[in-house]
Structures are given as C-alpha cells and as structure tokens.
C-alpha cells in the first residue's frame, strides 16, 4: 500500500506499478455487516468500515464516504434512507425558481447535517489509514449534481430557458462545495475529488459555462493546500472529456462506458492523471465478465504513467 504512489499518479507522474483506489462506498457497510442507513450516520461505523475496506482490498487510497447527498442534506433537502444503498434526495426546495430567501435552504457550516459525523469519522480513521499507508480521500458533490438536488431536474432546461436562475443556483452550489472542500482539507484528507456524475449529460459548451467556473474555487483551495484533486464523472462523457481536462483538477476519473486507451491518450495530451475503469456493472456486480481478466485489461491499457486503477 502506498499513499505516495497514488498522489504521484494523480499528478500524472510515473509509478512502479499502478496504484489502486477502490471506491468502496456502502460496500464498507456490507464488509462490517451493517445497514448502509446506520453506517452512513455513525462515525465509529464509518471509520471501522473504511479501515476494514482499506485493509481487505490493500488499497492505496480510500474515500471517507461516497455519498452525494451530504451537501444537499446539510443545506435542507429531505432524504430517503435505504439499508443497502446511499440515501436518495427527495425534495428540491429551489425547484420553484423563487428567491433564495424563500427556499428554506440555509448555507452549510461544520455543524450542518452529517458534517459532525464525517469530521469525527475522519478523526478516528485517519491514524489507522496512516499505519496502512493508505490515502484518505474526501469526495464533494459536484456543482451541477448539487444544483440538480437543489432545483430539481429542470435545472437541465434552465441552462437554456432561465440562464440567470441557473447561474444563481450554480453560484450558490459552488460556494457550498468550496466549504465542503475546506472541511475535507481540515479533516486531513490527502486527496479531494469533485464528483459530478450528471455533467456527462450536457454538451461541451454547457459544461464550459455551467460546470467549469463553479469548480474553480474548490480546485484552487485544494491546490493551495498542496493536495491533488480529481474530477469524477459517470456515463459516456466522450463529448465533454476535453472540458473535464480544463476544470483544473490534477486528474479525472471515468466509468466503464469509456475506452481506457482513448482516455489514457486524452489524459497524456493534457498532462493529467486518469482513474478507472474496472467494469462495475458487467464484471464486479453481475459477473458477466471475469473480474480478473477485466483488471488485467485495465492495467495493460493504463500503464504506469499517471494511471490509477479503480472501479469505473
């Protein structure tokens, strides 16, 4: 296990072998026989789960948690909890396009929502992960995904029909995720990731206008802290991948829908680290492909320059 190798690869550098970053997420709860709904609200369980996952999977890095509802909950959105999955955001208080003061949303601070739980989990887990030489990764909800939590699905049409409103929501989301970034830095995270899965569902010019500028503050904060940053995107992001490289993060992570050879070439063109892309659905969940062979293919495609092996 090597935290430094992970950091080096995320910065686009060469490593002796590809570092390994399992996004264990609620799988950590499964590993310690806990319900996800209990696990995600209990600092001791969170710490136990990620340390167990890091140890079991011999990870070079592990996310503190992989849950994109944290910011939404802290800001005032309602959640539905599940025993075997992350919570769902089920209310969108800014969907009426009303002035912010009438939404009932409130800016987050370190005492909002589950932030105290997450701070405590990091405090408990960090020394154990240090012993394992495993990096702790803080994952913030990306600006467009958070905007869709706050304003609902119509944020996708507002980027055309109500640009001013869309920018207002994104501006607020940007300020809030900058706070999240600061929180993860204070917790002692070694890497910070911006997770914006829905940003693959828009055109490149829309990405440039509604995602890139709203990542800037977080990216700067991570850079000032001397840490590496990653942008995580889901789905077929072929048409926006060049834009992803312009967000300013050191690396980007993609999922199984992309060809890793193509991704490697794009990353090297931009001097970025790249993270992926074990086939989460076909291999790890359904077993339709051999996980072993899938891993070998990823390792062969990714090589040892700027590449981090991870589920896609």
């Amino acid at each position: 296990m090597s935290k430094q190798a992970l950091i080096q690869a995320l910065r686009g550098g060469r490593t002796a072998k590809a570092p390994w970053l399992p996004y264990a997420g609620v799988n950590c709860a499964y590993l310690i026989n806990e319900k996800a709904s209990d696990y995600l609200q209990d600092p001791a369980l969170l710490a136990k789960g990620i340390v167990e996952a890091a140890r079991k999977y011999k990870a070079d890095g592990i996310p503190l948690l992989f849950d994109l509802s944290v910011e939404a909950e802290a800001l005032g959105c309602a959640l539905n909890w599940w025993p075997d999955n992350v919570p769902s955001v089920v209310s969108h208080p800014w969907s009426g396009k009303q002035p912010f003061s009438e939404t009932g949303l409130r800016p987050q601070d370190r005492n909002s929502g589950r932030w105290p739980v997450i701070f405590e989990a990091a405090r408990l887990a960090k020394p154990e992960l240090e012993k394992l030489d495993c990096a702790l990764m803080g994952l913030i909800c990306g600006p467009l995904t958070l905007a869709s939590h706050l304003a609902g699905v119509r944020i996708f049409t507002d980027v055309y029909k109500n640009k001013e409103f869309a920018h207002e929501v994104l501006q607020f989301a940007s300020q809030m995720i900058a706070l999240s970034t600061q929180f993860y830095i204070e917790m002692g995270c070694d890497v910070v990731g911006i997770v914006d899965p829905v940003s693959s569902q828009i055109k490149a010019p829309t990405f440039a206008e509604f995602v890139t500028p709203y990542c800037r503050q977080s990216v700067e904060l991570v850079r000032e802290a001397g840490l590496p940053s990653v942008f995580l995107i889901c789905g077929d992001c072929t048409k926006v991948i060049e834009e992803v490289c312009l967000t300013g993060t050191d690396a980007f992570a993609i999922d199984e829908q992309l060809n890793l050879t193509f991704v490697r070439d794009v990353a090297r063109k931009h001097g970025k680290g790249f993270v992926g892309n074990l086939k989460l659905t076909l291999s790890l969940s359904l077993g339709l492909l051999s996980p072993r062979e899938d891993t070998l293919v990823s390792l062969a495609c990714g090589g040892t320059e700027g590449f981090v092996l991870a589920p896609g």
Partner: protein
Amino acid sequence: MSSKEELLQKLHDTVVAFDEEGTRQAAEEIVSGGHDPLDAVMNGLAYGMETVGRLFKEQEYFVPEVLLCADALNAGMAVLKPHIPSSGGDNSLGRVVIGTIQGDVHDIGKNLVKLMLDVGGFTVHDLGNNVPYESFIEEQERTGAEIIGISAMLTTTMMGMKKVIELAKKKDPRIAVMIGGAPVTPNVVKLFKADGYAQSASTVVAEAKRLMGAFCPAQ
C-alpha cells in the same frame, strides 16, 4: 394555408428545434384546417421525437436538449389531445405500468418513455420514481396491464429490477416486463430474464408493440 404534409413537417421540425411556440402554432393549424389530430401526433410530433432520439444516440443532443424537445412536444399535445378520442378506450394498444425502481429517483428517462408510450397509443399508469418492488405488481393487478416497465439509473438500484421480474413472473408468466436505464445492456436483460429492453425512449414504442404481440394479455 399550409398543406397537411407541410404542417406535419413543421411539427417535426419545431419539436427537433425545441421551438415550443412553433409547435403550438402548427398544432393549432392542424386543428383549424380540419386535419386528423392523431395523424399529426404520430407523424408530426412522434416523428420529431424519433429524430430527437437519433440525435441523442449520436450525442448531438444531451439531456437538456431532449427535455426541451419534450416541452415542445407537450405544447403540441396540449392543443391536439382534446381532439383525439381517449386512448383509454378501444383505441388503446395496451396498458403499461411504469416507474423507476426502489431507491432510484432519476426519472428523466422514465418520463420520456411515458411520453412516447402515451403518444404511441398506449395507456400508461405511472407510479413515479422510487417505487417499491411490490407496488409494480399491485398496480399491474389493479389495472390489468399487459406490460410492466422499470427504469434504473444506478448500478446498485438496477439489481432490484430482477426482483420485480421474479415477482411478476411468479404471479403470471404472461406479464411482459421491459427494462431500461443507463446501466442496462442487452446482457443485463438476458441475465435478469426480462422480456423487453428499450435502449432509449425512441425505441420503446416498437418494443412495447412487439411485447403485445408476443405475450397474451394478462386477465
């Protein structure tokens, strides 16, 4: 005054250009000109959405553009629908219970599928998002629907679709189940033993018609 063919083309073009006002005007001209509104829906609006589906598949259009096209289609439907006999009667091609699977609140694709089925002549019973497994079966029993349509956006929630398929087949093997959503592939359809699959909203009507031909209505 524009000919029927010109108006159908205008309905198509304005849907593709997500021009709500243009679609509404063309639909009003269909009605005022005494043309068949159902023909306008199928060969104007739905034809437009077929093109939108192709553009989505080719990654020329993304979610915002597709939603805006759907807005234009809805604007046209609002004008034309009052002039079309209810699809819940003898004209209905079949009944579909639809929803996103438990734990999954992502319903953009499901709503587009609902729209296409509705336009395509099916009676749709929409359970919304985050639907408990048993609710699909209960609603099928209540409505006598021939098809259950399930959508999932997440790899994790997708696994729940298999449970609904098993429940449906246990109740009545003649109930057809079709699935879709970002993580769903033909391999998943085969593994879960689903009857049908719509890769996108643009192919769902054809797939639903195929299922209606392949399965006996559940009574």
